């Protein structure tokens, strides 16, 4: 058996250390190793975006990220969005706007949206569409998701949507 490799990184602000198998991807490492079940496995080939996480603030597909490459880096998942009982404005807007139906795409959508709002707090509708261009949703038809992201952006800026 191939030896496992020690790996440490920050996950939603907490130091995390574990061992990974050779060739393990980050998605599997987060779910099975770190117990963070928020990123989802949809396709394991980059097409659905359900596994999107932020690495040093930028969206990446965790299913296509070799786990060992995140040594010492900062990973953010949907698991770290809420502040205790208080949902993140994106989560709140998704809930209120029916932007999550089955919910399978939601964690990836939220992280793609967070990356956008962190960089552009006041995005246009087209920028929102572009930001979630790599995330598939089979339920909502996308419009409620785009609306929810714009609503969250407006609230975070203290504007009404």
């Amino acid at each position: 058996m191939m030896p496992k490799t020690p790996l440490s990184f920050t996950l939603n602000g907490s130091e995390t250390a574990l061992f990974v198998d050779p060739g393990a991807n980050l998605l599997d490492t987060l779910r099975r190793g770190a117990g963070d079940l928020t990123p989802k496995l949809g396709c394991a080939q980059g097409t659905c975006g359900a596994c999107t996480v932020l690495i040093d603030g930028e969206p990446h597909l965790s299913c296509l990220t070799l786990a060992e490459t995140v040594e010492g880096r900062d990973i953010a998942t949907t698991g770290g969005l809420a502040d205790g009982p208080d949902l993140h404005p994106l989560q709140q807007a998704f809930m209120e706007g029916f932007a999550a139906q089955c919910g399978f795409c939601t964690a990836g959508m939220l992280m793609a949206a967070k990356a956008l709002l962190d960089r552009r707090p006041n995005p246009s509708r087209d920028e929102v569409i572009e930001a979630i261009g790599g995330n598939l949703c089979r339920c909502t038809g996308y419009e409620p998701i785009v609306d929810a992201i714009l609503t969250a952006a407006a609230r975070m800026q203290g504007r009404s949507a």
Partner: protein
Amino acid sequence: MSLTVNTVATLRDAAYALNDRARYLGGGTLLMRAVNYGDQAFDTIVRSRETDRTIRSEGQGIRIGAGATMTDLLASRDAEALHPVARVIGGPAVRNMATVGGNLFAAPPYGDLATAFLALDATVQMADGQSMPMESFLSARARSRGLVAAVMVPRTGPQEFRFAKVTRIKPKGVSMMSIAARLPGAGGSLGDVRLAFGTMGPMPLRAKAAEQALRGRSLTEDGIREALRVCCDGLQPGTDELASEWYRREVAPVHLKRLLLGRGR
């Protein structure tokens, strides 16, 4: 079968570590897919802690480190001519990961950037110091086990370069075909035209008969007629889930015409 990850300190070490059963890890968007789906063609991933993501002017062109991502290209003024290509590759997460080096090996329907490089007459620099034209590199890439260090792209004005990606899913989708054209003298009489098609063969290919037919002509209905007639000569389109070979041959002149006459995309 077990997989080994060989993490090395430098690109030089990575070049030494590559062999028939080893693959270099770029952004991983294709390689990790192969790993996830149990590809048995390799048993070692070579990963280098050192990467080269620099993009800079050098001589008469720009040098792009093989580790540069599509996002890096989009952030570089020097690489402005390539922005229309980098922008339509995947979504934001793919663009943050996908490297220039990996795109040179991407099988159809991928390889949009390699198609652009072929039209731009770019040169591939290998880590062992060897250098070769993109066309020779692409035709031998299946046997290549070397490490690509960088791509050198001759400087081209944004007006001289045109690119179209034809997809069946809007706004995002993989290429049914992509077309890249370097059109010196586009305002009047065309000079040394280079025309490349992606996803119209096992690797990006030049449409040499059409290039020839455009030389000395102008970008008018009349000037491009012969080029459109011969544009599939030498291409080897296949049939896949996006389109049949017949369909690709039928629509190639239509899309080439739109590109050359600048109508729509």
